[in-house]
Structures are given as C-alpha cells and as structure tokens.
C-alpha cells in the first residue's frame, strides 16, 4: 500500500467515526415518559388509550411501541441480548417468561405484587401462566394483562337451519348444537363439509413457522390426556398412545378444513370464516372482535361462540395465549419505580374495567365475573369460561428449540401427509428429549 493511500484510508475511517459519533444517545433525567413494547395489533392500541388516560392523570407519557407479531420475539430477544434500555416494560408472550427470568431480563415483581395485594386481584390461572416462574415457586415477574385462549366461532345460521337440524339428527341421532366433545365437533365438521356448495366443516391452525400448528394441536392433545412431559420424562409421554390418537384425530379434522388452509393461523382462520367457507373455526379470543363487526364479517349477526370441547375422557383444555406486563431489568432504578407506579395504577379495578371496556381482555377476577363483562360481547362468556382450563406449551428458556421439531413433524404429517402419526410423535419425542437432556432439564 502506498503512503498516499494509507493516509487516505485513515482519513476515511476518521470521517466515518466522526459521522457515527453524532448519533450518540443523550442521557435524560426525570421520568416523563414510559415505553412499552408490544406486538402490532388492536389490543396494543387499546393499551395506548389507557396509557393516554395515565398521562392525563399524572403527566407521564406512555408510549406503546408496536412490533409486528412475526418479529416481536426477535426484537425483544436482541434487546435483551444487548441489555438495552430502549423499553421500560414489555407485554411479553407467556412462553418467554422462563428465558427472561433465568437470564435476568425481567425484574422480580413478587414483593411489589404481593405487598400491594395485586396478586389477589387476578385469576389464579392467569397469574400462574403469565406471571409465575418457575411453576409453583410463588415468584412473579409479570402482571397478567391480556388474557387469551383458543376458542371457537360458529355459524348460527347453518346450525339453526331446520333442514340442517333435521338431516343432522337423522344421521347422527342427536340434535345439532354447538359441540361439547371433540367427537361431536368432528361429526358436525363432517356434516357441514360440502365442497360442492363451497362450505367446509372446520378451520384449524396449521401454520408452520413459529408456533401456529402446536397451538392448534394442543387443544386436542391436552384434552386427550396427553402432555409434553410427565414426571421428568418425555419419551413415552409425548409419543404416548393418547398423543398419537390425538394427532390422528387432528389430521382427521384437517380433512374437513377449507382448501388453502395448509399454512394457516389466526389471520387465515378469520379469512375463511368471513368468506363463508367454514362452519366452525378455532381462534384466539383476541381475534373475535372482527367477527362480530358487520363491516368486516358479512355473517356477523349470525356468528356464535363456544369454548374448546372435552376429550374422550372428559378432559378439557385449551391452548393459552395472552401476555403479562413485565418490567425490564436493564433500566435505571428510577425508571423501574416509575414503571411499578404505572402497573399499580393499571391494576386498579376501576382501570381494569375501562381496559375491558375499550377491548382489552382483563384478567381481573371481579371484572371477569361482572355481569357487565360477561354480556358485553357474545364471546366474553366463553372467554371467562375458557380461562379456567387453559394450558400452555413449555415456558422454559428452550421453548423455541422445543417448538421447532414439533412444528416441523406435525405440519409434515397433518398437512404434507408424510409418514404416520406414530412416527411423527416418535420423532418429536426424540428431538425434544435430546434438547431437554442437552439443557439439563431432564436426565438422559
């Protein structure tokens, strides 16, 4: 390299660094603003509305930053990795909590929640799933904010049509009504699958990336009495006979699904319902407001809702959705205090009532049980019901790794028709066993 060019390169680097240094962040004093990270969807808009009320009352501005669902976790995770303080709080997904706690990203809120009596204001199931880690430890890291679970929407016009009712009763020997067991649901799905009329029985989750498939399948899986682990064991549990049977059943349901739902999650479920192709769909309660909106759903007036049905032995479980509000541990103590003040304000029954009124799914016991809430929408009753039998996937730090083989083999079998249910569950059990042994969660 010539002398000339060496000088030149030094100049270039210098110029670059000079440019860069302009952007150094400015420190601030006095808490005038709180920033909350959440996914990009309507409940975040509702939270912003509640936040605006907080600003009106206290003068502290609340900013709800919305990140698309597809990158919500990635955004949060890289922020954790950088131990950044860009956000004060996050309304984090229930599955994240193990990782966030073990790696120290969330602030321990046990004393704060207990001493203020906030832990007693929310339903035990929501506190357990959104707030507590490890399970049963009595240590809390989040305030249950947006409760959610998988529920069902159905077309009342089809169910209440006299011809349908008579035909159904003649064929299955019982009246046509919203199903209480999975077997009934299957029959109804079969009954309404009429490709020539463009109507299909049931829409179920099948999406491959992230967790869509698992969140749909779990409703059947848990209700069949299967589980992701038992007594520290995975082999023989994940691939137990019940689990295999549950998977075969789920694939059976997929046979009655509208065409084009081979990679479907909440958005596609609403789409097939709105387009009149499905008699029933599963979906998170959070996505039901659109279905009672006549401007969005032509069948809004004739849409009914029911909670997840029971399995062959009477077990009834639905996949958990929803999020709790956590404080990130990398912010200054002043900001931590200010965040706690906000949660304290937000957790008041009066504020929770308004939260429910604008569209948030509150976890507050009194609000949930109030007549006003139960009758506010056609699905609130089913929601309050479902929140008593929710069940979640793993929430330990390795949940993402555990999801991956489940997603791949489940979609491979259900959608792609590869192999048998036994092989799929065997493969999942094997892969998850290995991951858990590697992580030291279970013994080899």
């Amino acid at each position, binding site marked *: 390299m010539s002398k000339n060019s060496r000088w030149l390169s030094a100049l270039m680097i210098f110029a670059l*660094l000079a440019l860069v*240094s302009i952007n*150094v962040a400015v420190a601030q004093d006095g808490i005038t603003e709180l920033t909350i990270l959440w996914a990009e969807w*309507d409940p975040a808009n509702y939270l912003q*509305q509640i936040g605006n009320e907080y600003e009106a009352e206290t003068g502290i501005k609340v900013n709800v930053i919305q990140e*698309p669902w597809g990158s919500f976790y990635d955004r949060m995770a890289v922020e954790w990795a950088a131990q950044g303080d860009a956000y004060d709080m996050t309304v984090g997904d229930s599955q994240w909590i193990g990782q966030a706690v073990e790696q120290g990203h969330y602030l321990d809120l046990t004393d704060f929640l207990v001493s203020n009596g906030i832990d007693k204001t929310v339903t035990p199931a929501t506190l357990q799933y959104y707030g507590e880690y490890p399970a049963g430890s009595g240590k809390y890291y989040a305030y249950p904010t947006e409760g959610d679970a998988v529920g069902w929407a159905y077309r009342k016009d089809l169910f209440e049509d006299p011809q349908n009712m008579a035909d159904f009763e003649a064929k299955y020997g019982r009246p046509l009504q919203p199903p209480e067991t999975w077997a009934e649901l299957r029959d109804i799905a079969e009954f309404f699958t009429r490709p020539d009329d*463009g109507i299909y029985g049931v829409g179920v989750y099948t999406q491959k990336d992230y967790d869509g498939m698992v969140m749909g399948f779990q409703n059947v899986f848990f209700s069949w009495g299967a589980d992701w682990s038992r007594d520290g064991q995975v082999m023989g549990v994940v691939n137990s006979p019940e689990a295999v049977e549950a998977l075969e059943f789920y694939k059976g349901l997929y046979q009655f699904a509208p065409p084009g739902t081979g990679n479907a999650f909440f*958005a596609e479920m609403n789409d097939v319902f709105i387009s009149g192709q499905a008699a029933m769909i599963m979906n998170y309660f959070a996505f039901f407001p*659109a279905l009672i909106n006549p401007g969005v759903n032509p069948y809004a007036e004739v849409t009914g809702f029911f909670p997840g049905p029971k399995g062959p032995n009477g077990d009834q479980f639905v996949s958990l959705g929803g999020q709790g509000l956590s404080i990130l541990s990398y912010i200054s103590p002043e900001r931590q205090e200010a965040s706690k003040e906000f949660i304290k304000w937000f957790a008041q029954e009066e504020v929770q009532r308004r939260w429910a009124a604008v569209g948030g799914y509150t976890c507050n016991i009194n609000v949930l049980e109030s007549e006003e809430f139960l009758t506010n929408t056609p699905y609130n009753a089913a929601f309050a019901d479902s929140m008593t039998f929710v069940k979640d996937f793993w929430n330990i730090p390795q949940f993402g790794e555990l999801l991956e083989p489940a997603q791949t083999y489940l979609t491979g079998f259900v959608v792609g028709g590869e192999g048998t249910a036994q092989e799929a569950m065997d493969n999942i059990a094997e892969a998850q066993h290995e991951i858990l042994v590697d992580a030291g969660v279970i013994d080899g």
Partner: protein
Amino acid sequence: MAAQSTPHPEVNYSTRVDEISGRARTLNSVRAVIVILIALIMLIPVAWMTLTAFKSRPDAVAVPPKVLFEPTLEGFLSLLTDRRQLTAEQIAEYSQRTDLNWADQIALSRGQVITGASNYPQRLANSLIIAGISTIFSVALGLLSAYSFSRFNIPGAGDLLFFILSTRMLPPVVVTIPVFLMYRAIGIYDTHLGMIILYTVFNLSFSVWLLKGFLDEIPREYEEAAMVDGYTRLQAFIKIVLPQSLTGIAATTVFCLIFAWNEYAFALMLTADRARTAPPSIPSVLGTGGIEWAAIAAGSLGFLIPVVIVTFALRKYLLRGVTFGAIRQ
C-alpha cells in the same frame, strides 16, 4: 443519436438483408404480439393487486374471486390511519354527528373511529431517504472502483474483485446479529445513517461488478485519444467515459434502488421506530381481524410507484444499450 458518435459509419437499417423480405416483417409483428401477451400475463398479479387495493374485506377473500365489485377506499384508510373499534351504543351516537368527512364515514361503516394518522407515511419517508441516498452512494463509489478495475493495472485485481463479491454471499440472516451488536456499540442502531451505510455496502458489490461489465465494453481508445489531445485522466473520465456509461449507470441505479427500497431482513432487525422503512411495515397491517389484504395491496402499490417512476424516467438510458460495439474486435 448515439450512433453518430461512433467512428464507424452509421448503419442504414433499411438496407439490412434480413429486413427486406415481407416474411421478416410478418415475423416482426408476430414477435410484438408474443411480447405483449407475455407482458400481459406477467402483469396479472400486479393488476390483481391493484383490484385488491380497492376491495372491502369480505370482497378480498370472496369465493370465487371477484373481478367486479364495489370499489372502496377502506384499504387505503386502514393503511394510513389508526382506528378504534366502537361499541354498538357508541356507533349509534357517533352516526348522529353531522361533521363526519368521507374517511370517517368509511371507518364508521366498519364500526370504527379514526384516532389518528398511522406511521406508514413516516416509514415511506424513511424508505425514500435511506434508499435514495444509499443508491447514490453505491452507484458513485461503484463507478469509481469499476473504472479503476476496468482501466488500470491493479495488482491482485481478481482477488480484490472477488473479495468485493464475497461480501454479498453470506446470508443476511446470520450477519444481522453481529451487525446489530456493532451498530449498537457505535450508536447507529435504528438510525438513517446506519441503514444508508448498510445498504450502500450491500449494493456496492453488485454496483462494482455490473459497472465494470459496462465499462469494459467502452473502448479505451476514446479516452486515450482524448488524453493525447491534452485531457487529464480525470477530465477524460468525466467528459468522455461518464456520458458514455449512462446506460450502465442507469441500470445499476435502478437495481441498487430496487434492492435498497425493498430490503426486509436488515430493516426488520436493525431498525425499531425511528428509522424503520416501509417493507417490514406493510405485511404487518394486521387488525384484530387478521390480514387486511386491501391495506397490504394498497401499501404495496404506493410503495411500487416511486420505483416505477424512476425506472420510467431512466427508461431511455436503460434500453439504449451499449453502443460501442462498433469498433470492438
């Protein structure tokens, strides 16, 4: 006309052997018809996107797909505003009001009230700044390097060129984490500057290679003649080479702009609120109801228009081709 500038006498096209016969002329119109047919087929998805942008939510997913429907601006409204769902009583009360404009009316038909502008215009502006400036940089820097590689005897040129190319080979997904950490450390995470630098670098390899390809086609004799006449190398470059490489510059500009304009993975991971561009925002126009197809289509169309304008403006240069072959061996 460019051909005038070539030392080779201009070809009189009408004397060309293959153009005389009537058969050739028929072939020519057949060819035009085929091209137009292919173009039409290729444009069907774009046309469908345009239709979808004006559909209501139920029409967008109607079975069978609707070609005729009542157009609505719902999609554009979803894209450009934030809305809030109203309860039945609120709707009744709200619809009594007389001061509602057309946008409010559309929102109301879906039981919603507009609460403010969405962040889409801001993100579109970010895209314009970031893609625009980075394209200028990558073409300018690329042109200088390409000229050097094309004209000067640079030791290890082959290796250097390969190094430049190799910077494009690593899948971006895996580079995002180190780049994120680096940007974080020097404080250009989520800034326009950071994204401009990144896209410039991202496009440089392509720009150098492509421009070198074009410059190689321009005979050295031109500059050499000019330099014999007393031009300096720099003057020869500016006054002779630059005007003749406009085709290459136009093509490179269009490609760099398209890449930077549409880039998704880096934008998703390296920007948050301040410098986020439009591509990561468009697919996320999800309300509670799921995918707002009309809004996505509207966003994609609006996002397409600036690139189409630039391409149309540069069309003349793009399609002129390189006109120097005449004296090439």
